[in-house]
């Protein structure tokens, strides 16, 4: 079975959504602002982090691995160690996407089989548009009103 995880980033944090069966997650997530995975679509694997022993079920930490050569910071560099895993804020990140452990575990438990590239992880940025374009050139209106540039003396 194929699964989809969507991460939409906006104003420094994001929302991770995941739906499968009776599981319906929409949760705030965080990441290190200095190491930001490029927006894009990645193949994810439900796995465990072998060197972290703080899994929700008492085993190693549950995580979604995003695969090899994941681009970050928009500068052409790639890295291999990005995961979605538990965390309460960006201090858990170093570039990973983190969210509360209970939600990670709920999502991770739903995904079968484990250790398979059966997840599509879509990461996108929602841009915020403020204000609106000016209707007209106010400077030109002033020049018309004053008959030219005013003298500031």
């Amino acid at each position: 079975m194929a699964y989809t995880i969507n991460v939409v980033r906006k104003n420094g944090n994001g929302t991770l959504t995941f739906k499968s069966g009776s599981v319906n997650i929409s949760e705030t997530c965080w990441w290190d602002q200095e190491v930001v995975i490029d927006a894009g679509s990645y193949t994810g694997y439900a796995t465990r982090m072998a060197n972290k022993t703080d899994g929700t079920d008492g085993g190693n930490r549950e995580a979604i691995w995003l695969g090899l050569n994941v681009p970050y910071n928009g500068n052409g560099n790639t890295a291999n160690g990005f995961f979605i895993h538990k965390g309460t804020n960006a201090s858990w990140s170093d570039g990973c996407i983190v969210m509360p452990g209970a939600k990670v575990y709920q999502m991770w438990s739903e995904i079968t089989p484990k250790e398979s590239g059966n997840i599509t992880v879509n990461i996108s940025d929602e841009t915020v548009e403020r204000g609106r374009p000016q209707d007209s050139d106010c400077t030109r209106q002033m020049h018309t009103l004053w008959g030219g540039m005013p003298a500031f003396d």
Partner: protein
Amino acid sequence: MDRQSLWAVMGLCLAVSTAEAQDARPPDPADAVEMIELMLGRVPSRHDTPLAAMHGLADLYGRSHEQAQSGSAGLWLLLGDIALRSVDAGLTQSYAADVLPLYREQPDTILSVLSDAPWLATSTCHHLSAYFGSEDRPEDDRAPFVEAEASRITKALPEPVAAACLDTLSTPQ
């Protein structure tokens, strides 16, 4: 630097390395090859799939960490340097959690490696510093740690290396 000076520096480096190597456990050849391939940005050739490579790297971390705990920390700290330079987020988090506890148990083992290879101090001190405040660990413990270790670090490392390390340790990552 002229050629004679270059050879002199290389000879000195080799002499230091040889002296240190007398006490150090030689790395497993397959692990050494994997680390070279990691430095070159390649998928280590002993793993068949990307997933196997990810788990293999975690295993390499585990083996070298065990060696470090038994007194031979060079390979583990070198892998930490590779992790930081290659922005391996998962591995970097492991180092941020694990370097400082080992340093507390075996400060002289860690500092001996850094004395022989001062260029490893940048990443090692980064990982020591990153312990504080990451994964909800308290930031409050930073200042007492720096105060307690400043003298030991200053004695063990070349002056500019020690100063840079203490500066890194004093700065939240």
